[in-house]
């Protein structure tokens, strides 16, 4: 397959292919490589043959392997994907097969290439504009009066982020004191449950054991719910209560364990 393709190429094209191989480091990823390869088709990107392109790419990868050039993983991932695309494009569509058709995938790839090329062109246009400090210039003498009335403190977002990053890397990820405000510890829950459980002869929703003032704020409620549940498990282990839940996500109920079963 590969030989066949190379036979069709002119000397110039072969030289170009060689150059591509040698320059593999110069490519910015598989999409960039595909874009370069697509130029050899000498057609508008909208009219490109994705199938030919896939074949070219696979040949390229093959050639690079022969030359024992180490390829980054994403080039190989792209190769695998293109091999898949190629088979989809070549084989008659299988109606039982789910997912996008080969043509859809090919169209998207063509879109990606066209978009990347468009961004490159846009970048070139941008860089070619009359730029400050090169074509257009700012005022050389800015007014610098010595009578300074106020001191203006500046800081930008970057300073702020750097400052914060500095602190956070210094004492790495210690839990913060304010977290405790909203944390109902298991010890607290256990203590509370021990006091209440003696009165619970009937099945009662565990939620009714949440302490006052811990049910409105979601964060507090979450913490209290978790610790009350954990405390219930602990009490059940101790044989003080029994727990039941009818089905997944239904309310969890507890009641005092009767000593005699």
């Amino acid at each position: 397959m590969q030989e066949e393709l190379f036979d069709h190429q002119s000397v110039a094209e072969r030289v170009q292919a060689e150059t591509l191989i040698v320059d593999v480091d110069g490519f910015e990823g598989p999409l960039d490589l595909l874009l370069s390869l697509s130029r050899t088709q000498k057609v508008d990107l909208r009219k490109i043959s994705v199938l030919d392109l896939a074949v070219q790419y696979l040949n390229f990868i093959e050639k690079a392997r022969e030359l024992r050039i180490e390829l980054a993983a994403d080039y190989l991932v792209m190769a695998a994907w293109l091999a898949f695309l190629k088979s989809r494009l070549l084989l008659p569509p299988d109606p039982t097969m789910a997912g996008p058709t080969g043509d859809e995938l090919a169209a998207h790839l063509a879109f990606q290439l066209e978009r990347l090329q468009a961004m490159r062109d846009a970048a070139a246009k941008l860089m070619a504009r009359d730029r400050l400090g090169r074509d257009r210039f700012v005022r050389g003498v800015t007014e610098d009066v010595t009578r300074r009335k106020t001191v203006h403190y500046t800081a930008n977002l970057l300073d702020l982020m750097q400052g914060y990053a500095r602190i956070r890397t210094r004492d790495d990820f210690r839990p913060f004191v304010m977290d405790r405000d909203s944390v109902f510890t298991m010890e607290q829950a256990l203590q509370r449950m021990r006091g209440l459980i003696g009165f619970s002869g009937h099945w009662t929703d565990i939620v009714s054991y949440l302490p006052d003032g811990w049910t409105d704020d979601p964060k507090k409620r979450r913490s209290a719910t978790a610790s009350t549940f954990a405390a219930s498990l602990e009490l059940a282990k101790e044989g003080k209560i029994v727990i039941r839940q009818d089905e997944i996500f239904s309310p969890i109920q507890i009641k005092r364990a009767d000593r005699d079963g």
Partner: protein
Amino acid sequence: MDDTQEESLFEAPPIAEQERMVEAILFASAEPVSLREMAGRMPHGCEPLIAVKNIQKRYEGRGVSVVKVQDAWTIRTAPDLGFLMQRETVETRKLSRAAIETLAIVAYHQPVSRAEIEEIRGVAVSRGTVDQLLELDWIKIGRRRQTPGRPVTFVVTECFLDHFGLENARDLPGLKELRAAGLLENRPAPGAEALPEPQTDAELQENLFDDAIEEPEDGPLY
């Protein structure tokens, strides 16, 4: 100065005088000056917008011109005279191809997340690339995308516009054509739901270059 201000409570200075003031203010600053800033420095009752527009007209075809950058105004030398200014030329660090492309993608697709930049370039964006653009003050961190993970987005800065001689991001070269060709769309790969960008095209379109959009806050989970 106090005198001037007191006087101005009764009557704003004539427009010709206001033009002189704006001229002086613009000449004194290397950075673009906002109308608000001008108004704050000029006597009460002044209309800097009218004055600056007059000034702009006055400098048409001259060696320097009055240009607008977003909501601010500044004076820059005429681009055709750049050759005279070799001494003032700022040697800029050569930007890598990756940086230039990333810059263009941010400019044309803003607000754009890192994942989206990577999807367009088909390759990971290195930390240094983004750093370099942030350092140049050409891009900045914009709003968070209201999608899973709430990724930060990047947008271009006033400094970027000033550098490339653009009044605002809508003036980017070829923007309309690119948009018409559908090349600024965030088209997901067929069959793939891999990328976390469930924004519809319409939303995205709205989002483009529109900073004023109020995004819904995340609702509490409970």
